């Protein structure tokens, strides 16, 4: 009897999943101190604009796009592998483990409407984060032979310097009418 009891106990222990809180972590930009807007001057080629309208349609760099395509497009923008003059400029910086590397200065600008649905917004956010994660994983695999999440903190920091997560969410605008 005791054997059966233990067996069941172990079975339940293994099969039950405790619900853990998961989510996409993000930093909000601090509120500007003064009222006057400080428009940062960023070159057009360094910005990747993603717009979501109130009927959940995507406009990426001025062209309509399906969500499934967004990840590839974002990866291309972040890394700029072929030094395309339309894609972001690169800075040369020193990074631990890697030496001197060229790092693209691209910023992703995400703008949504008040009428955009939250699930669409999260899908887009997820694709953007996925693009970063895939690039970080790729470089981690080639350099260290491990996945990004299995690296030490210093190694992760080095990769973060090469692919810094730069998603800027523009000040909210209401264009689509009723929210």
């Amino acid at each position, binding site marked *: 009897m005791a054997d059966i009891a233990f067996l069941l106990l172990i079975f339940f222990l293994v099969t039950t999943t405790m619900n853990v809180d998961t*989510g*996409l972590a993000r930093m909000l930009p601090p509120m500007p101190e003064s009222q006057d807007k400080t428009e940062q001057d960023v070159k057009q080629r360094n910005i990747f604009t993603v717009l979501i309208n109130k009927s959940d349609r995507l406009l990426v760099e001025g062209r309509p796009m399906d969500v499934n395509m967004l990840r590839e497009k974002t990866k291309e923008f972040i890394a700029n592998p072929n030094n395309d003059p339309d894609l972001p400029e690169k800075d040369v910086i020193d990074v631990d483990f890697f030496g001197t590397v060229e790092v693209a200065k691209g910023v992703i600008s995400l703008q949504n409407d008040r009428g955009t649905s939250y699930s669409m917004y999260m899908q887009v956010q997820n694709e953007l984060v996925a693009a970063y994660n895939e690039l970080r994983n790729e470089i981690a695999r080639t350099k260290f032979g491990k996945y990004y999440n299995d690296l030490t903190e210093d190694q992760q920091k080095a990769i973060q310097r090469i692919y810094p997560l730069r998603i800027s*969410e523009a000040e909210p605008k209401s264009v689509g009418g009723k929210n």
Partner: protein
Amino acid sequence: MAKFARKGKNKMPAISTASLPDIVFMLLFFFMVSTTLRETELFVRTKLPEASEVTKLEKKSLVSYIYIGPPARQYQGLFGTDSRIQLNDSFKTLIDIRDFISSEREAMSEQDRAYLQTSLKVDQETRMGIVTDVKQELRKASALKISYAAKRPVHEH
């Protein structure tokens, strides 16, 4: 001899109850382990969206929750079906967020205050308008570390 045999056949042996405490304890342990205590009752429906790139929230003691979603059915007569904000255990408005954040800060120890993280549990059918408003309020309260709560999709991997 025959008498004995018949007697044994007619009478069903009683079920042993010696293992009952074992079973009860087992169930007890099972429920103790698997239940998560919910400190707030949910007044709004929050069906979280799915996202494959989610990460775990590190320290639960540093996290405060903001729920946004349509009111649960029993409150719809009173509050309608439009998405609303719930803080702690009542419906609140945008203005209350700053007070909420500062009271959450106060409840934390001095050195933890900088690490306050806000988890936005938003229903997937909510429109972004109210979420944007909440984000603006959080910026004003300088609670900048946020997390969009989402589930890991089941079908992947």
